[in-house]
């Protein structure tokens, strides 16, 4: 099968897997009778707990990416790994840029992204931007001594930005819930 087609299929499979996970989570929450405020509080606490774990999961994916040799041909398993990383990156960036919880009602989404959450999220994004820029500077400097492929450079820059944003947002949310 053509390599590009295979990549697209794996990318779509990743999105499908993520949607299934979201559907399972939504089904579980639906079974709990809660008011809008209680649900927002529940989701907010759950998000505060999840953000650091998400950062760890995201980082472990980087380890698997950089342990593969760039000299060897890209195997199907590597395509899956890269696709999974790409899907997760897109979802995290979308969650950072929007209110997240896309399948919840408008009232819950508004409440779960209230003033304090918005401030924390924007602070996380600020950190993400600064770390991505910092990573860009470091990579630019490194290329003077060591060749870095475009894919690796983009991968490192994106990862630095996303992980920094997640960690900062997570820390602020956990502190706010304390």
């Amino acid at each position, binding site marked *: 099968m053509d390599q590009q087609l295979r990549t697209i299929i794996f990318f779509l499979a990743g999105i499908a897997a993520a949607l299934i996970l979201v559907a399972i989570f939504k089904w579980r929450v639906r079974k709990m009778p809660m008011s809008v*405020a209680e649900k927002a*509080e529940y989701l907010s606490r759950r998000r505060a707990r999840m953000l650091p774990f998400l950062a760890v999961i995201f980082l472990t994916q980087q380890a698997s990416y950089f342990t593969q040799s760039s000299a060897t041909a890209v195997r199907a398993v590597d395509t899956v790994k890269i696709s999974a990383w790409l899907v997760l990156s897109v979802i995290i960036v979308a969650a950072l840029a929007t209110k997240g919880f896309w399948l919840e009602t408008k009232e819950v989404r508004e*409440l779960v992204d*209230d*003033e*304090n959450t918005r401030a924390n999220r924007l602070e996380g994004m600020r950190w993400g931007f600064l770390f991505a820029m910092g990573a860009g500077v470091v990579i630019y400097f490194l290329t003077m001594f060591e060749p870095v492929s475009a894919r690796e450079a983009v991968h490192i820059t994106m990862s630095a930005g996303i992980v920094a944003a997640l960690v900062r947002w997570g820390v602020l949310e956990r502190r*706010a819930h304390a």
Partner: protein
Amino acid sequence: MPERLANRIKERRTELGLTQAELAEKVGVTRKTVNTVENGVFTPSATLAIKLAAALGLSVEQLFWIEP
């Protein structure tokens, strides 16, 4: 020396027998936001300050003040 926005939310809230969650529901935010404003961790917007003051039956000036 940075200035700090002090408040008497906790004092007033206790007087009225409200929990953080109940006050949060009244002003349309999560308990977390009320908690951070109450503890001086988060500086609220003018809109939220007015809503909090109205919910607690005080003026904004009575509820918040600047501490040097």
